[in-house]
């Protein structure tokens, strides 16, 4: 692993100072220079993020509130998923460095094994990031609402299941009053009950109050919503209005609970269409527009780096299989690929801290 030469180099071929001041190969030196410039780019992104966040004061989203979902299970597990992603990337960095070590012993079998493990780790990481993005874009079941006094709130709690829509005024598809619309017979345009509900809320096609909501579907059908009650609905005020003060993240009693009328407030906002679900580049339910843009840009740019890293690792892996480096007499290419791969891990360590923890 030591980078410097163990043999004397012929002084006639050295630099003017008779020898290289760095004692490393050209490729490795250039990889380091590239990584420094790339690190400046990521450093600038994160500092710009911090600067922007600071200028928004307390309205910025909080990591453990925003990222608390896991695939396939319900409930709140703050930061569990990103912690898992971080761990996967660290482990793939370890398998990479073990591959580099095997290369220094000319152990072709070892390099093959560890390179394969590194590629798998990278693929799992990118897959995890895809799930996280998808979850971020689709958003929560509650979304973010603007209450009647102008305050903006996100919601926590368990969203009551929507069982069916009961036709009140027939439309094009559903012609019978009293007909039950379920996920089985809902029109393709409406997708499923939940999708239809969120779509209608955002388009001001909901009316009524909590427990007695009406929905207007794509075909003009007006239906009563049969929905179970939400459990423990809490509104977290992100920016204050004329009546409600901003909730403190440190104190859950500053949220609006069911006893203080969170349900009525929430469904009043829905019936007025004052709701945002999920995230895109224009708006997101988690916080200011800039937050979503930074999230997509910084984690996206990192994910792009990981993807390129996987591609480089696959190319190097194929060359290891072919024996290219064995014939060359050294596995420096594995080392250079390794430097890039560790750098990707390094960037994630910082993204993890500044995006999710702080």
């Amino acid at each position: 692993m030591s980078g410097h030469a163990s043999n004397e180099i012929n002084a006639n071929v050295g630099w003017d100072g008779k020898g290289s001041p760095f004692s490393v190969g050209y490729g490795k030196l250039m990889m380091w220079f590239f990584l420094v410039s790339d690190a400046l780019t990521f450093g600038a992104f994160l500092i710009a993020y911090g600067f922007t966040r600071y200028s928004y004061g307390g309205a910025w989203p909080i990591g453990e509130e925003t990222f608390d979902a896991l695939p396939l299970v319900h409930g709140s597990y703050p930061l569990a998923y990103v912690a898992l992603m971080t761990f996967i990337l660290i482990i793939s960095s370890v398998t990479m460095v073990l591959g580099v070590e095997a290369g220094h012993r000319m152990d072709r079998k070892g390099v093959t094994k560890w390179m394969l493990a590194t590629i798998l780790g990278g693929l799992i990481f990118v897959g995890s990031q895809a799930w996280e993005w998808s979850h971020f874009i689709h958003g929560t079941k509650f979304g973010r609402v603007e209450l009647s006094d102008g305050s903006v709130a996100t919601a926590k709690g368990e969203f009551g299941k929507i069982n069916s829509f009961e036709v009140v005024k027939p439309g094009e598809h559903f012609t019978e009053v009293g007909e039950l619309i379920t996920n089985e017979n809902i029109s393709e345009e409406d997708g499923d009950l939940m999708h239809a509900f969120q779509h209608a809320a955002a388009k001001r096609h909901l009316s009524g109050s909590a427990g007695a909501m009406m929905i207007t579907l794509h075909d003009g059908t007006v239906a009563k919503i049969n929905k179970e009650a939400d459990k423990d609905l809490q509104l977290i005020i992100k920016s204050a209005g004329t009546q409600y003060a901003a909730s403190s993240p440190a104190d859950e009693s500053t949220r609006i609970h069911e006893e203080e009328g969170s349900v009525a407030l929430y469904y009043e906002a829905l019936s007025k269409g004052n709701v945002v679900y999920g995230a895109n580049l224009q708006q997101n339910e988690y916080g200011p527009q800039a937050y979503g843009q930074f999230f997509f840009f910084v984690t996206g740019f990192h994910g792009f780096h990981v993807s390129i890293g996987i591609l480089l690792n696959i190319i190097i892996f194929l060359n290891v299989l072919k024996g290219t480096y064995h014939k060359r007499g050294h596995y420096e290419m594995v080392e250079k690929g390794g430097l890039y791969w560790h750098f990707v891990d390094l960037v994630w360590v910082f993204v993890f801290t500044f995006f999710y923890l702080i």
Partner: protein
Amino acid sequence: MDQRDDIIEYSLYNHHSEKEGKKLRKKIWKVTLILSIVTAVEVFLGALVKQGSEMWLTVKVLFVLLTLLKAGYIVLTFMHLGDEKKTLKWIILLPYLIFMLYLIFIGLTEGASVGVKN
């Protein structure tokens, strides 16, 4: 491949023995353990201490320090910059640190001048 005498091929001499390898692998697993524990501690603290609580500032500073510790292990051990020649080590690290510290300084000073907007 024949060795060309106009190219200094350091990489050819960049090998180590089975014995040295064993020592290195031990070091790699030690660093792995440290990185995993530090990450676990960070997540635990993040879930435990709420933002805006009295402890938050301390935890925030701790997060940054732990992150720098992890970065140090990754750069010096995994990227083995710690084993390179001193000249190379500082040629990589110094310009980066100078630029970043300057940018952080600018961000902190100017950041305070940007008003709260919602």
